[in-house]
């Protein structure tokens, strides 16, 4: 096998680059492939993806990463969901949790019974029926229970971490497993029969490879610059095209959730880490001036700004092909979806997983593999896109031109169909691929005031007090389980990380 060893060149060393290098190192380094990562200290990483979804835990587990060590070194906090403020209406707040609302009753989803009880005015809030929300609101955290019958097993969790520390952590991991890091800036790409033959660095070096992974960020040096994949632009549905990012000092309790607050022409993130809070204002330059957006961000910081705000520009959409010839684009080079639902790192992780599954071990890339990769990734991006658009279209806000635009814009047919089914009678169709499960859709629908026009006919026949008893029992169990959890900061302290 040693004679077949290929050279994989990862171009770019941000979160995407080091996640890719680390996984390839874990899987193949020294056996099937030699891995080279090229990055330049001159080029900053974007690192907006500081908040994650629960799948990141499987990524870390696969690499054999110890959670406590990881939490200490990336200054991570735990995350039970995302709080959305001012989205449906100014003054609204809801949490999209990593977990279910109650459990099915007689073959029907719980939320129909909650609605039935709510119609009679006897139900607690839907939030009260979700353990991760109840715990998040109380700033409490404990890992899920392994007992599937316990309410404590009805949720999952993710992390909020410093993306540059995570990249450094994975760099350390990768280098210990034989990845060679090349300091340098790519200035040219040499095409070859297979796609890319080599990249040239500013200092004149030429680095050849069998397989290239383009983690060069928005520019897509290889996938677009050299291979001209083309870009499917989605900014007519998701008009935000810029963000200011700035960290600030921590104030108040350490929340086990990310916050996304709707603004006049976009929204603002708040990601609490152990040592600071990440903030960013995502906005549309069609609807507001960057200086206004910057001032709005600085005016609303909870703590003291720890750096000058940095502005990023982006165009929402996806590369028409994410894998061409011997080149795979992973991360921002593959497409961009604003971090409203913390999907950036997850999409990187999915791409890496697919690449490993379809890895051209003998060095020859099969068109069948490329077709499957591009099909699967396109579907993932589209399904995330629809979920993000829902947040903008499901609103009563009409206070600014931005909100008047997004609430009335024409939607993708795939989303129109989904929304019609929910609005009519509370149907949330599950699908096989796509990261957001029905509970996520429910959280956003109800949280943004989309309520089914009609009750489920089979639940409407159930006396409201009977539904209310189910709902009350679930809410009481969530309350008890949340009360038994330690504070979030205490949990972090207990695993040995200084909060």
């Amino acid at each position, binding site marked *: *096998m040693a004679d077949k060893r290929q050279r994989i060149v990862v171009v770019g060393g941000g979160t995407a680059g080091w996640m890719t290098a680390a996984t390839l190192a874990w*899987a*193949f380094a020294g*056996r*099937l492939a030699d891995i080279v990562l090229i990055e330049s200290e001159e080029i900053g990483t974007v690192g907006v993806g500081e908040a994650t979804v629960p799948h990141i835990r499987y990524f870390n587990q*696969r690499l054999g990463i110890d959670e406590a060590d990881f939490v200490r070194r990336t200054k991570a906090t735990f995350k039970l969901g995302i709080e959305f403020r001012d989205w449906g209406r100014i003054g609204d707040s809801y949490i999209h949790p990593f977990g279910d609302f109650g459990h099915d009753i*007689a*073959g*029907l*989803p719980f939320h129909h019974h909650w609605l039935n009880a709510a119609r009679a005015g006897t139900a607690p809030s839907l939030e009260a029926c979700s353990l991760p929300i109840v715990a998040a609101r109380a700033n409490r955290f404990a890992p899920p229970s392994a007992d599937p019958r316990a309410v404590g097993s009805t949720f999952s969790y993710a992390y909020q971490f410093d993306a540059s520390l995570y990249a450094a952590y994975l760099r350390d991991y990768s280098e210990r497993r034989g990845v060679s890091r090349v300091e340098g800036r790519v200035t040219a790409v040499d095409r070859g029969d297979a796609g890319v033959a080599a990249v040239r660095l500013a200092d004149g070096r030429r680095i050849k490879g069998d397989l290239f992974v383009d983690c060069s960020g928005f520019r897509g040096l290889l996938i677009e610059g050299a291979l001209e994949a083309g870009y499917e632009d989605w900014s007519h549905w998701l008009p935000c095209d810029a963000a200011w990012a700035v960290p600030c000092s921590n104030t108040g309790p350490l929340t086990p959730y990310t916050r996304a607050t709707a603004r006049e022409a976009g929204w603002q993130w708040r990601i609490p880490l152990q040592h600071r809070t990440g903030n960013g204002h995502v906005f549309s330059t069609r609807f507001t001036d960057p200086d206004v957006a910057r001032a709005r961000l600085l005016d609303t910081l909870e703590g003291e700004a720890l750096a000058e705000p940095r502005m990023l520009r982006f165009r929402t959409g996806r590369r028409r092909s994410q894998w061409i010839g011997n080149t795979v684009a992973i991360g921002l080079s593959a497409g961009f979806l604003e971090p409203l639902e913390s999907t950036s790192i997850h999409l990187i992780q999915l791409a890496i997983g697919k690449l*490993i*599954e*379809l*890895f051209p*071990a*003998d060095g020859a890339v*099969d068109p*069948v*593999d490329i*077709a*499957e990769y591009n*099909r*699967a990734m396109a579907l993932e991006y589209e399904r995330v896109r629809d979920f993000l658009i829902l947040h903008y279209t499901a609103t009563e806000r009409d206070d600014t031109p931005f909100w008047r635009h997004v609430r009335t814009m024409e939607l993708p047919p795939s989303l129109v*169909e989904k929304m*019609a*089914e929910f609005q*009519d*009678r509370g*149907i949330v*169709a599950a*699908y*096989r*691929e796509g990261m957001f499960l029905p509970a996520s859709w429910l959280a956003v629908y109800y949280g943004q005031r989309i309520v089914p026009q*009609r009750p*489920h*006919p*089979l639940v409407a*026949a*159930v006396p409201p007090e009977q539904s209310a008893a189910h709902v009350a029992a679930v809410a009481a169990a969530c309350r008890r389980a949340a009360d038994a959890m330690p504070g979030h900061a205490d949990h972090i302290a207990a695993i040995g990380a200084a909060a």
Partner: protein
Amino acid sequence: MIETVAILGDTLCGWIAAAALARRLPRAEYRVLVIDTGARGDGLGDFAPLIAVPPALAAFHADLGLDDRQLVDGTGGGYALGTVLAGWRADGATGFLSYGETGAPLDGIAFRHLAARLRSAGQTVRFADHAIAALAAQSGRFDPAAPIDRGLHLDSSLYARMLRSIACNNGAENASAPLRDITTDGPIATHLTLTDGTTVEPFLLLDCTGTAPTDAPFEDWSHWLPCNRTATETVPADGAPPPFAQVDAQDAGWVMGWPLDGADVRVACSVDGAGRSFRQGALAAPWTGNRIALGAASCLLEPLHPTALPLLLNALVRLIQYWPADRTDPVASAAFNRGTTGEQARARDFVIAQYAAAGRPGAFWNARRTTELPDTVVAKRDLFAARGRLPMFDDEPFEEEDWAAMFDAMGVVPRRHDALADLLPIPAIERHLAAHRAAMIDRVRSLPPYAQVVARRRAVA
């Protein structure tokens, strides 16, 4: 007012629908009424006096308070741990598709990739040597109490009778007389008149007669699945029945054998052979107006795999989820039709793919390989042939492992292997497979011979 859910067809399909709905519909609101239309047979294609029940139906039966032993003993049926496929492959070798899991993963790498790795090193690995159901089948041992996935072969009319009794206990009713005619207003069935003069105003009309309405748009699948004749016979058989089914490929179709105590039931499907004619395909919109076609009235697929019952049960689950508020409910029916027709098409794909992957020579079989296939089949066939993986779509009734096992049984050998499996040392994979197999063989040794189970049942009866 109590609404009537009228089920047309005193068939197995009709009584399954009645049993499922009577469990779920509030009795104060709905009456479930089964009406005989004169349709005979199971309403599920009527390919045999028996119906094949895959393990996936266990949850439905449990919800009704039935276990496998009650079902088999109560209907004079049998158990099946899998299916022998004979005469399908180019090399003439026999394959075995077993129920339940095959092998165990090592370091997160699926068994089939481990097997491919050993094969690439020149070793012979048979899936059937690594599935507990297949090992039990090979040694003729089985105990219904053992936690081993199994299918059932049940006498359709006795099975229907058991379900009728459960449905009626839950409030379903048998109509006072057979159907005379249906009065419609556009897509809505407004009145049903029975032969005794009774009229029924159905809220929903579930067509479980087994025959698709001739005036509804029908997607014909016969260019992919040309078998159009079926015949069945029950032949005496000596000795203990084996706990598995067998499908022998023929020149233009196949013959399946289901062993029972003292007899074998045989079903043949062929192009222009002996027996009754049928046409494979599905309604474009099984739910139109207040009429919902279920079972073979909605979709007719040759019974090469036991797909009829899971498709019916999943359609009923969907119906409960999307239960209409009124006689017309375009949102609910569109959602139901999307999921139901999607799942039917993916079940169809599995059968088409098996024909296309079979290497058997002959004009019929050559045509199965050279006919233009649905894109969804091409995608699965090509990626499996390339590297043993499967693209999976929404509404798949079969899992990735089922697809892989079928292609393997047809003798398809992927051109390349999983890169992670390639890095495992061969001895580590060998040890893993051997240890797992030894543990399964120990479990199989503790089972009684299947013949004893059959004999004990005969003694009780």
